[in-house]
């Protein structure tokens, strides 16, 4: 459904992504793990056109092209068919929880306001925040804000939703409520690509784990294989280190 080949990105001469290829199938829940600075955020941002790639090919929703050759219209198509959940939520500060969700529906999708509100309420219900619909982001806890962020993404019914460390800005006691929502999404068949430091999520919820280091995909496979018998030394070391800290 979404295929990326040879994706490259550098900042000021520093190669951050050194040719990444990823295949996302419908219903996949892919966890991307790896040390800090390995390029995980950059990968999600280039794949979703938030950042311009320096090279690589994308096949997605009728587009089959090199990144550099994408037209404005094709960039729009990509943006319209992906959802993005940000590490620091990025809710629209001047909009209520409900308006955060209806905004994209009304403005970008041209859905009627009453219809958009119906969809938004359904999305809020899925993340358990119906009673907070008229709250502004500043009046919500971090966990609630992130759940609105997720509701905003699912309301648009994108083909795939990208999550960039959705729980790492949260106080530990709020991580659970967000993970629970993500787990529900996964089991309802939503296609998800999740950058995460939550090894429990990678192991128990996703169907594929990608280990990234230094701008490369070092290894990928079923969670069982990666966590129990990683074939690369770097994967082994990363997992031992991170699991030792849990």
């Amino acid at each position: 459904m979404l295929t990326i080949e040879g994706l490259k990105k550098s900042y000021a001469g520093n190669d951050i992504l050194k040719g990444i290829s990823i295949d996302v199938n419908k219903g996949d829940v892919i966890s991307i793990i790896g040390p800090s600075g390995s390029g995980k955020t950059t990968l999600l941002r280039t794949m979703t056109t938030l950042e311009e790639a320096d090279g690589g090919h994308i096949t997605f929703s009728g587009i089959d092209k090199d990144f550099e050759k994408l037209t404005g219209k094709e960039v729009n198509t990509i943006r319209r068919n992906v959802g993005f959940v940000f590490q620091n939520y990025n809710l629209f500060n001047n909009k209520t929880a409900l308006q955060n969700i209806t905004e994209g529906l009304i403005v970008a999708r041209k859905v009627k306001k009453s219809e958009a509100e119906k969809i938004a309420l359904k999305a809020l219900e899925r993340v358990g925040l119906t009673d907070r619909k008229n709250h502004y982001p500043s009046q919500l806890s971090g966990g609630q804000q992130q759940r609105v962020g997720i509701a905003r993404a699912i309301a648009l019914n994108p083909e795939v939703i990208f999550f960039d460390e959705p729980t790492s800005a949260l106080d530990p006691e709020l991580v659970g409520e967000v993970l629970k929502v993500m787990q529900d999404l996964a089991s309802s068949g939503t296609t998800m690509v999740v950058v995460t430091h939550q090894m429990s999520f990678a192991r128990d919820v996703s169907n594929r784990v990608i280990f990234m280091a230094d701008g490369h995909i070092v290894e990928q496979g079923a969670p069982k294989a990666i966590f129990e018998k990683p074939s690369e030394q770097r994967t082994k070391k990363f997992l031992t280190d991170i699991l030792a800290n849990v």
Partner: protein
Amino acid sequence: MSLNTDFMVKVAQTAIQGVPVTLQIVLVALVISFPIGILFALIRIYRVKVLQRVVQFYVSLVRGTPIIAQILIVYSALPSLLNMIIGRAAFAINPIYYAYIVFTLNAIATLTEVFRSALQTVDKGQMEAGLMVGMQPRQTFWRIILPQALISALPNIANTTLYLIKNSSLAFIMSVKDITAIAKTEAAFNYNFLEAYLVVWVYYLIICYAAEVVFYLLERYFSKYRRPIKKTSGFNWLPFRIKQPKLERKQS
């Protein structure tokens, strides 16, 4: 020394005719400079070729010169310039138009800087979130970024307005009949300068106070989405503190 209160009442009655003039200058300057200020701020933020240089030069030109010099230049250059174009009719132009020009040009420079810093306080994640729900950059700017920037700019817009009100008193130099000009004429006529200037002083105080109240209410209304501000930090309704601040008193 005693104040001639009868004269003060008389000046107050005459000078009040200058109040609409003062307000007109301020409002015209604000209304015109507002959109232009936003446009100029955007030119600077997005570093639009050539134009950004022009804006930058313009802003430093205005900010680096005293307003009195700007008034004198506009007032001595414009009429003779117009005279060359439209002939003698140039000297029949109501001088208030020159005041509009000077104060608008001045406010544009101030507001450009106000909007530039306000727009930069809006997190870039807001734009990215807009793009990721499929909105165009333009739509995200109008619906998400600009409203937030304007609200955070309100205190500085209030400041700009107060300066405008006070600076507009210099319009008398261009023989505009505003509050100051009328009071000055009365004063010179009757040799009661202090009384006349006290009246001027009170009028500006009232106008500025009213402007402050308006901006406080605007800010309170539009900031509803922000984290509730501490209740105690409301508006200081009295221009002077009459009551002494309460000292903590031990209950015993």
